[in-house]
């Protein structure tokens, strides 16, 4: 039996440079980054991508106090996606809704906060919060969204390091095709800027970006790149089977065309371009396409010296010189690395290209690293193109997990 066609019918997001798809997209086309300085416990002022959405739009003050930042981001994105989808939420069967949220990690923030808290009480654990466990369980962001929305179907997170945002969509498509749910809220979230441990960890790896101008700090492919800018954020989508979306006359952003997930099995942190290329190839094959059919490749590149070069090697191996209609960009140059939200957010920023035929650029490339000089790289200025029928989104993560997701223009 032919698998069901899966379509994107709603988008809700918060990024460091926008808290709606319209605002985010406008800033991507205008070259507006969203990086600022933030005080990080024990580390002082650091560069970070901070989201400025109104948590109280969809939560009570008490929910914000009791819950986590990741939970707030998930709730905001889920509610915004549902509003965008045009679904009559009151009429939706809540037991047929699945929530699948990718996370790089969860629980660091809350654990660090509690250790800091009891440090003020001579490390006496009787001052440890009774909220610690519900805040730190790995399913927290999805669970908070289910509480807020009254969703009684499956709601859980998918841990896949920085490949997780794509994984939320991949898993949702699979669950819809299996008939496990009729509507999926899916994507990724991150609260990583609230844990000093991630900043300190990248700094110890010599992989934390520094720059006098925060807006210039995240610079994938530039010779002077010097590491990652850590960001928070989220993007959740409503995914539905095409038959259901058609029946209710839904607006369609695009169709899930193909995907692939694989593992490097080679190193804890170093990427593996051979496995990355295999992942991209496999996704293209699954979509029934060839590399030259891909019109936008959104790279994962995080602005580490080696990681960018290795991803470019993988992309070169797949797309080579024979893909004149393939345009390559990067979103982290604006918003830093939104970790578990990265793949989902970066896809969202490119979806409007189906309508406006403009490819947003990679900014902050003043001196292109020759080792990153891919054909089709869109640098610093948006590019109007003749055709955008396919978007390929790469997201890779530590312990060697790779995910590639392809979305195509929807044609009934």
């Amino acid at each position: 039996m032919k698998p069901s066609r899966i379509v994107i019918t709603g988008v809700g997001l918060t990024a460091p440079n926008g808290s709606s798809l319209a605002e985010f997209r406008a800033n991507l086309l205008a070259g507006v980054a969203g990086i600022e300085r933030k005080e990080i416990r024990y580390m002082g002022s650091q560069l970070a991508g901070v989201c400025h959405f109104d948590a109280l739009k969809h939560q009570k003050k008490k929910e914000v106090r009791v819950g986590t930042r990741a939970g707030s981001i998930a709730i905001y994105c889920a509610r915004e996606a549902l509003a965008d989808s045009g679904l009559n939420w009151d009429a939706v069967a809540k037991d047929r809704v699945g929530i699948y949220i990718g996370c790089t990690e969860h629980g660091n923030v809350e654990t660090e906060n509690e250790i800091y808290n009891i440090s003020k009480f001579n490390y006496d654990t009787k001052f440890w919060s009774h909220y610690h466990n519900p805040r730190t369980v790995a399913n927290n962001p999805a669970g908070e969204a289910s509480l807020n929305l009254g969703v009684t179907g499956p709601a859980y997170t998918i841990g896949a390091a920085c490949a997780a945002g794509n994984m939320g969509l991949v898993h949702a498509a699979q669950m819809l095709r299996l008939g496990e749910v009729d509507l999926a809220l899916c994507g990724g979230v991150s609260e990583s800027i609230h844990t000093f441990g991630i900043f300190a960890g990248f700094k110890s790896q010599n992989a934390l970006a520094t720059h006098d101008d925060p807006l210039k700090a995240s610079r994938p492919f530039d010779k002077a790149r010097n590491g990652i800018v850590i960001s928070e954020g989220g993007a959740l989508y409503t995914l539905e089977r095409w038959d259901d979306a058609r029946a209710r006359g839904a607006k369609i952003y695009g169709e899930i065309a193909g995907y692939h997930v694989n593992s490097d099995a080679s190193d804890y942190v170093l990427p593996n371009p051979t496995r990355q290329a295999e992942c991209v190839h496999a996704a293209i094959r699954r979509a029934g396409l060839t590399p030259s059919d891909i019109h936008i490749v959104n790279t994962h590149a995080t602005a580490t010296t080696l990681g960018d070069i290795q991803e470019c090697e993988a992309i070169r191996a797949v797309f080579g010189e024979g893909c004149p209609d393939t345009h390559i960009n990067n979103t982290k140059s604006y918003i830093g690395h939104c970790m578990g939200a990265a793949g989902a957010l970066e896809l969202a920023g490119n979806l409007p290209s189906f309508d406006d035929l403009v490819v947003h650029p990679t900014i902050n490339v003043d001196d292109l690293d020759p080792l990153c000089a891919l054909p089709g790289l869109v640098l610093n200025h948006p590019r109007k193109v003749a055709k955008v029928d396919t978007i390929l989104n790469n997201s890779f993560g530590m312990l060697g997990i790779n995910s590639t997701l392809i979305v195509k223009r929807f044609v009934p």
Partner: protein
Amino acid sequence: MTKDECKKVVLDIIADIAPDEDLGNVKPEVRLRDQLQLDSMDFLDIVMELRKRHGIEVPEKDYPQLASLDSCAEYLTPKFDALAGKS
């Protein structure tokens, strides 16, 4: 400490743990849970904040004493006075 001052201490804590609630008309004789959106985790918050802010310990067997503002004042005022006597 007077009982009214003790009630004010408890209300200040509730204002922080239940920030959406209007505390202007809390009836001291009525159970807090019957007039405010408070669940069992919120009561643990009250216990924790009494411990953190005031050094007051409320053993689990005494939790029912925190049911209303009046019962809070009856139960907690002697504890505050005992602490004040120590210092």
